[in-house]
């Protein structure tokens, strides 16, 4: 393990890769700060640039962007009460009230310190957890992979929120359907190409990610009319001192420690991600706080700001565990990174640890550097970076659209891809208006090819019988977890209904 750590350290410490971390953190902070554009959009926007780099540098850049975007999202949450992404929504609960009390500097500093601690704890656990899980997963067979992918797809749907489970399942199926477009990976038979040569290679992952996240998010911002209010009413509040007193540090230290470990565990669960981690950590801290401090939650409580910030960064790190060890992305952002790794010809999973230790370890180590860069370089520069919010939205939005389409065009040099992007963006906007989540679709699309290959292998080995689902203990137990997760929302709802029916009867 230590040999791998040193290889990763040597790769991550290369001047160019360090530069990539810094550039990634800055770019991510810029993009993440823009309301509506979160880490998924930020990472998607970076993909065309990473294609010109070697795999380690490319992934390091993306990791930097990921962290930067989460940090940028927190900054806009605190300064203008507009979360850059869903995982920093909870930050607005106490971050913005603090800013209104003329403590914006303190709130930003606390968010940065908490994020740093969360990321550090996450990176340390990851160093030990990832190789352990990777060595176990070397014995996995195609049936196990099929079951694990099914678990990943189901979890994303199951954790998607009240009333969204079926919609998320539908979007997963839709993503799998899109993945079947193009020549069949096994037999080479053309599927759903309708005689179009441009569809023979299937729909590009980059095109789909850009259209459904970057472009569709900008279009939704325009349609909701938010771009007109950004410059007029969402003026950033003035920054104040960034110092924290010793008493304040003592108050938030246990919160940061608890939320970091808790956030990492939630982040490891496929599909749970940083958003759920931040909400759960906030809820946990509010329940644990003494009565006097509990009343402060929502009005500018330091604990209320530290908890989600530590948890979402630790969860961002945790979501790399299933990606790096099993090749199954735990969140929308890691799904995009999975696509990028596959485009490099690197298959994430247990073999990544053996075949590409430089990529595996440099990603983990650069996560830590990313946290350092955010704390040491980005935090002091926040007053200057936040001026980005002053760029008129009527100028900024067309530029984002331009970078999205040109990013796709510069990979294929085919204008058909831009036309396809327009079509997919319109479809994504329609689906968003109908409240369908996009992340499960992207996950379904990315896992579609692998799922089909593993299912095909498992079925051929078992001679067309489905007994492979229960013959191996690992496959069977994964399938049991999948079914439990799938049925859990309905079982919980049923339990609640039964309890409410019994209560009046008892009265």
């Amino acid at each position: 393990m230590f040999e791998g750590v040193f290889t990763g350290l040597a790769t991550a410490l290369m001047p160019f890769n360090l530069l990539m971390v810094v550039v990634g953190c800055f770019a991510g902070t810029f993009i993440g700060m823009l309301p509506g554009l979160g880490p998924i959009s930020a990472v998607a926007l970076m993909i065309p640039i990473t294609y010109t780099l070697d795999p380690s540098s490319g992934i390091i850049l993306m990791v930097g962007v990921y962290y930067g975007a989460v940090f940028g999202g927190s900054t806009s949450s605190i300064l203008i009460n507009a979360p850059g992404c869903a995982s920093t929504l909870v930050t607005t609960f106490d971050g913005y009230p603090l800013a209104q009390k003329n403590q914006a500097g303190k709130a930003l500093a606390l968010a940065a310190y908490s994020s740093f601690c969360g990321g550090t704890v996450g990176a340390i656990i990851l160093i030990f957890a990832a190789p352990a899980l990777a060595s176990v997963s070397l014995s996995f067979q195609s049936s196990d992979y099929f079951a694990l992918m099914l678990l990943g797809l189901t979890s994303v749907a199951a954790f998607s929120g009240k009333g969204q489970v079926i919609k998320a399942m539908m979007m997963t199926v839709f993503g799998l359907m899109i993945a079947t477009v193009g020549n069949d990976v096994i037999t080479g038979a053309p599927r759903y190409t309708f005689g179009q040569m441009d569809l023979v290679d299937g729909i590009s992952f980059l095109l789909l990610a850009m259209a459904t996240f970057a472009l569709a998010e900008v279009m939704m911002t325009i349609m909701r009319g938010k771009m007109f209010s950004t410059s007029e009413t969402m003026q950033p509040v003035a920054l104040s001192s960034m110092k924290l007193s010793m008493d304040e540090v003592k108050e938030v230290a246990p919160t940061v420690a608890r939320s970091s470990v808790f956030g990492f565990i939630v982040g490891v669960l496929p599909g749970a991600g940083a958003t759920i981690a931040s909400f759960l950590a906030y809820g946990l801290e509010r329940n644990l706080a003494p009565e006097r401090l509990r009343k402060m939650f929502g009005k500018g409580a330091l604990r209320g700001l530290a908890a989600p910030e530590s948890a979402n960064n630790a969860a961002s790190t945790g979501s790399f565990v299933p990606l790096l060890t099993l090749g199954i992305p735990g969140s929308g952002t890691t799904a995009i990174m999975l696509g990028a790794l596959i485009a490099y010809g690197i298959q994430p999973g247990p073999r990544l640890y053996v075949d590409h230790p430089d990529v595996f370890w440099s990603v983990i180590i650069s996560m830590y550097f990313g946290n350092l860069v955010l704390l040491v370089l980005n935090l002091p520069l926040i007053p200057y970076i936040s001026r980005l919010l002053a760029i008129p939205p009527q100028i900024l939005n067309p530029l984002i659209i331009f970078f999205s389409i040109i990013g796709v065009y510069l990979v294929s040099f085919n204008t058909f891809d831009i036309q396809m992007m327009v079509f997919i963006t319109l479809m994504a906007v329609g689906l968003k208006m109908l409240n369908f989540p996009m992340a499960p679709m992207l996950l379904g699309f990315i896992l579609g090819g692998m799922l089909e290959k593993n299912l095909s292998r498992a079925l051929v080995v078992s001679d067309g019988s489905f007994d492979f689902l229960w013959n191996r203990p690992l496959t069977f137990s994964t399938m049991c977890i999948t079914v439990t997760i799938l049925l859990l929302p309905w079982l919980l709802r049923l339990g609640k209904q039964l309890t409410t029916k019994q209560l009046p009867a008892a009265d």
Partner: protein
Amino acid sequence: MNLTKDRFGGLLFLLLSVTYGYYAADIPLLPGDRFEPFHAQTLPYWLSGLGIIFSVLLIGLKSDLSSENDVISNSNLLLMLGLMAFTFAFSVALPWLGFPITTSIFLASSYWLLGERRLKMLLFASVPFALVFWLLLTQVLDVYIAPARFIFW
């Protein structure tokens, strides 16, 4: 039964899944593939079936009316459609007019559509940007971008 957003979405997906399943029959199979446990049509048929099941569930289940309040004005909808039309026009014009001209026109018209009316801003935020970006791609990053077709007329 009201036609809520959820049910409308469910109906759309039902239509999509049925059409997807119908076209699965058009996927060519290799000789003997039909007798294999898994072939090119297998997953599409399963996905079509799953899509139909989930759509019917969404249509049949009690709809959450709290998600019905996303108000979008017609003018903003037109803005979005206008930008999409400009993007489509950009893709059509790119091979004919070349990168710098198409990009300048696309950016200036998009700024204008979103409410920017200052001529100086329209020009300075589009033409120099397009030229610098084009020079960066072709001269610094050594990316080949085909010249405009009208040059060869």
